């Protein structure tokens, strides 16, 4: 960790020095340099701190990689791209202030949405007030798009599809009851309600269900789950609570046959924090390493080269946002927000995640979250069957 932080510090120093060196170069280059096209500035906020930071940092890296790749190939409309971003601290209120700043003070040319539906819902009125066509790589709640926010444009699979393959798999394997948990946050509640409805549709008994706030103690919830004896435990949450729940279930001495958690398990930190307790946990991902999509292998290689780690689906979503935005800007030869929005809702774009197509409301159609499982410390894609790297390992053992 130390070396990577030192590397970041070095990169930070380079980033600070770059404008100064650029200014000197312009002075030295005289009129020729002064005539160089102004860069296209893309603004966003990211949750570099706060409870969303673990997942959000991947989204930022995906965006940064996308911009670096574009600049390496000459930029858009003959202009280089510059990313201007602020830390919204996982706070909707802070994000509103920062997007106001990006639009009115920084006067960025284009916007990308923040990480999480929670923060996106807060900034939506602002985006729509200023008519900024804003691609949303990290906001998966369909209501954001279907309920009148025409300038927010979805760019990911919606949260009602998170872990949607788990309950059918469990039922086919003999499961009869389920415990469902949902964090009190926009995406996770959409996921939770979708899974409650799915469980009823499949005829699974809901032995226990609750929503919870970001908290540290899951012992009572784990005890209640243990006493309800469900075959499946499915949690819609974020990284910190997903770790806490698994630990608490283990402490209470309960291992359901199927344990699924959204978002958290796809992060490397989850496997480190839980060690063998993470084995056979299911999760979801909107992108995977073996997708046979154009540019996917190159994306993984470039990401590893740039960040010395592997991407996750949040990183892929950030990268995809740049791909879609680039397609719109290039096709319309314009930075006009009306033209960009009109193009995005009428065209489909081939990305590393697959075809991305928004309907007239800006809601991405057809994209779903696939299912992965931790198998001996490695995440493997198990659904869809056509791309599966392994068969599901049943049951979850809790050790």
């Amino acid at each position: 960790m130390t070396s990577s932080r030192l590397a970041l510090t070095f990169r930070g120093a380079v980033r600070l020095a770059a404008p100064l060196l650029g200014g000197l170069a312009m002075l030295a280059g005289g009129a020729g340099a002064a005539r160089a096209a102004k860069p296209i500035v893309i603004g966003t906020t990211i949750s570099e701190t706060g409870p969303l930071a673990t997942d959000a940092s991947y989204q930022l890296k995906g965006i940064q990689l996308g911009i670096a790749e574009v600049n390496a190939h000459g930029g858009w409309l003959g202009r280089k791209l510059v990313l201007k971003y602020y830390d919204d601290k996982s706070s909707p209120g802070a994000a509103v202030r920062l997007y106001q700043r990006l639009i009115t003070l920084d006067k960025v040319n284009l916007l990308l949405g923040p990480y999480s539906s929670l923060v996106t819902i807060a900034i939506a009125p602002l985006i729509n007030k200023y008519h900024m066509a804003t691609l949303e790589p990290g906001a998966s709640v369909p209501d954001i798009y279907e309920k009148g926010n025409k300038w927010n444009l979805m760019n990911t699979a919606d949260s009602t599809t998170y872990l949607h393959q788990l309950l059918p798999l469990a039922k086919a394997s003999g499961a009869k009851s389920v415990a469902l948990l949902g964090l009190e946050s926009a995406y996770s509640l959409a996921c939770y309600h979708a899974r409650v409805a799915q469980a009823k549709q499949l005829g699974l008994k809901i032995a226990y269900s609750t929503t919870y706030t970001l908290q540290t103690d899951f012992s009572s919830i784990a005890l209640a789950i243990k006493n309800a004896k469900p075959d499946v435990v499915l949690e819609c949450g974020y990284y910190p609570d997903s770790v806490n729940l698994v630990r608490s279930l283990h402490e209470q001495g309960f291992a359901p046959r199927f344990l699924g958690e959204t978002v958290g398990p796809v992060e490397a930190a989850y496997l480190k924090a839980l060690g063998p307790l993470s084995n056979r946990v299911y999760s979801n991902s909107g992108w995977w390493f073996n997708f046979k999509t154009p540019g996917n292998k190159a994306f993984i290689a470039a990401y590893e080269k740039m960040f010395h780690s592997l991407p996750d689906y949040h990183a892929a979503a950030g990268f995809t946002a740049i791909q879609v935005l680039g397609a719109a800007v290039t096709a319309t030869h314009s930075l006009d927000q009306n033209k960009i929005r009109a193009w995005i809702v009428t065209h489909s774009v081939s990305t590393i995640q697959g075809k991305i197509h928004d309907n007239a409301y800006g809601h991405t159609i057809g994209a779903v979250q696939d299912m992965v499982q931790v198998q001996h410390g490695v995440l493997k894609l198990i659904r869809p069957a056509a791309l599966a790297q392994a068969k599901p390992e049943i049951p979850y053992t809790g050790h």
Partner: protein
Amino acid sequence: MLALQLLVNGVLLGGLYVLVAQSLNLIFGVMGVVNLAHGAVIALAGLFTYWFTAQTGASPLLAVPIAFVAAALAGAVGQRLLIEPVMRAGGSKSELLSLIVTFGLSYILIELALQLFGADFVSVPYLQSSWTLGSLAFGKALVVAGAFAAGMSALLYLWLNHTMSGKALLAASQSPTGAICCGIDVARVRVTAFAIGVGLAAAAGALVIVIMPVAPQTAADLNLLAFVIIALGGLGDYVGVAIAAVLLGIAQSVAGYYLGGNAEYVLPYVLLLAVMVALPGRFRRVR
């Protein structure tokens, strides 16, 4: 048996609360320094423990004395250079001034943690299983943390009430002028107490990281929790805080089981409001 398990879970949760709150009780409850950097110290020590175990492969328990000594030394320096001058100059407003100073200090420590360790939540996979007694389960990490917290509370109580240096601290916090007249080196006593308080907060952080994921920004949540608990238990009252923490843990355990996660989360703040209304006298420092 369910009732017993809820009781066990509540007591163990209370142990975690004692761990987080008791060192603040020394600094705030006894010395009168409103230490808003308390949570940042716990988070920083927790992140240090994560780094230490990752680098050395050693048990996180080994990080406890290291964090204690390092933080105590830093606390002593900080108290002498920063807190003490402010407290002396502040007069009747010294508590307010200490709040402002430590508020700034907390931001510096959080930023330091961000630069050193990054923003991600991390945790150490250690003592993840349980001891069982019949059908009762005792989470190992919580038992260890609770035992440490109980020992810490007992030692603090004994130190303050049954040793000369502890009594000197109490005397210095109640009447600095009177303490000086009795020949007590007030400045030295306060440095010692502050160093011990910060050291214990860091030791708590080294244990908290094995119980729950910690990130630099966890500092704010830990602060809030610690202030609520010592407010419920009585400022400067070690036995009261320990009892309040355990009762709160039990109440949350029962509420979480029967009413769900949201009720468990909001309970401490509801209780705080209720106690503020019913027993406003509890919010005066022990003198």
